[in-house]
């Protein structure tokens, strides 16, 4: 554990700005970039890096969901149902993280990064919207105003058990690795469960606050969260994701996805080298 100095806090703040900015650009929390930087570049122990990243996930989830809490783009009912699975997953992950070797966690992170890179490459961009605003949405479906269609659109939820399993796995990886887990839920909800991308991303961002809290509390109680470094990271990520969301609208999506795939593969390679 390096000594906590103003310089270290400053570096972490800047890293937070970059991770949050990239996350905002790509529609992610940024933990997938922040954890490797803290762990590999700054030499923080893996649990300390994961704990700091989880606090930034909570902050991002809260501020993004607060900003989006109109127009019903967040599916609150589905979100609260899936939280049952995701909180159970992250509770178990948080407990097992204390028992699993760091090299195992690093390898797991490497695999997760490669999986995400592959999903991004082949990501289906199905839209899943029903243009009739009065269509029957079932118990858990929803309707919201979609900018692309310039109208209120509806959708139905399919394969709920799959959504629950994905949420559990996402919760588990979240507290083990210090990431939000949206990276797993959003593609599954979008490609297989019938949710439009915008609603899937908003609902996932809403849920990761609870997911990350279940994990972060355990690290905090264990004394693995350094508050001053968490403060630097949280404030940096808040600033960065605000900037990323604003510039993300103008950036070409294809170029962003290629950038993300390259960065994820670099992260995976670094994690595998470190875990030897």
């Amino acid at each position, binding site marked *: 554990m390096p000594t906590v100095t103003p310089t270290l806090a400053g570096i972490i703040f800047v890293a937070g700005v970059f991770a949050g900015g990239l996350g905002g650009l790509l529609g992610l929390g940024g933990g997938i970039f922040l954890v490797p930087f803290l762990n590999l570049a700054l030499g923080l122990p893996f649990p300390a890096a994961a704990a700091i990243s989880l606090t930034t996930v909570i902050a991002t989830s809260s501020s993004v969901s607060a900003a989006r*809490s109109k127009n019903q783009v967040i599916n609150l009912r589905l979100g*609260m149902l899936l939280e049952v699975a995701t909180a159970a997953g992250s509770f178990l992950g948080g407990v097992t993280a204390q028992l699993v070797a760091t090299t195992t966690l690093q390898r797991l992170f490497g695999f997760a990064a490669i999986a995400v890179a592959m999903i991004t490459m082949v990501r289906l961009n199905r839209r899943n919207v029903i243009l009739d605003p009065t269509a029957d949405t079932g118990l858990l479906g929803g309707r919201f105003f979609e900018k692309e269609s310039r109208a209120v659109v509806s959708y139905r939820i399919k394969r709920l058990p799959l959504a629950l399993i994905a949420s559990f796995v996402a919760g588990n990886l979240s507290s083990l690795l210090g990431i939000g887990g949206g990276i797993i839920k959003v593609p599954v909800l979008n490609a297989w469960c019938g949710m439009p991308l915008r609603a899937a991303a908003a609902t996932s961002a809403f849920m990761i606050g609870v997911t990350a*809290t279940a994990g972060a509390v355990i690290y905090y*109680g*264990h*004394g693995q969260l350094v508050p001053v470094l968490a403060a630097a990271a949280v404030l940096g990520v808040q600033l960065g994701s605000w900037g990323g969301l604003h510039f993300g609208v103008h950036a070409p999506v294809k170029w962003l996805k290629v950038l993300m795939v390259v960065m994820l593969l670099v992260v995976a390679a670094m994690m595998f080298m470190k875990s030897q």
Partner: protein
Amino acid sequence: MTTAIDRLERIVGRSLRIGVATSSVALAAGLLLAVFGDDRVAAVLLHAGVVILLATPVARVLISIVEYARERDWPFVALTVIVLVELMASAVAALFFNRQVK
């Protein structure tokens, strides 16, 4: 039905906004004090900021339970109570680990 959803959305949004704003202010003040001033006050502010940050999603779950109970939507009262219990289980696990370490 739509108005009930709107109401819950509004209340949830407001509670998240208040939580994240309060904790960001405490964390920013604590960070500045840690660099330029009093370490002890800084530590109090930083821990307060972290605790408020962690408490925000918990408060949001509590508020949802109350709102679903108001709507007499019992299945969702039950689901949100389960989420709250899981969060509490994590807090209990945290205390347990804390005791083991110290």
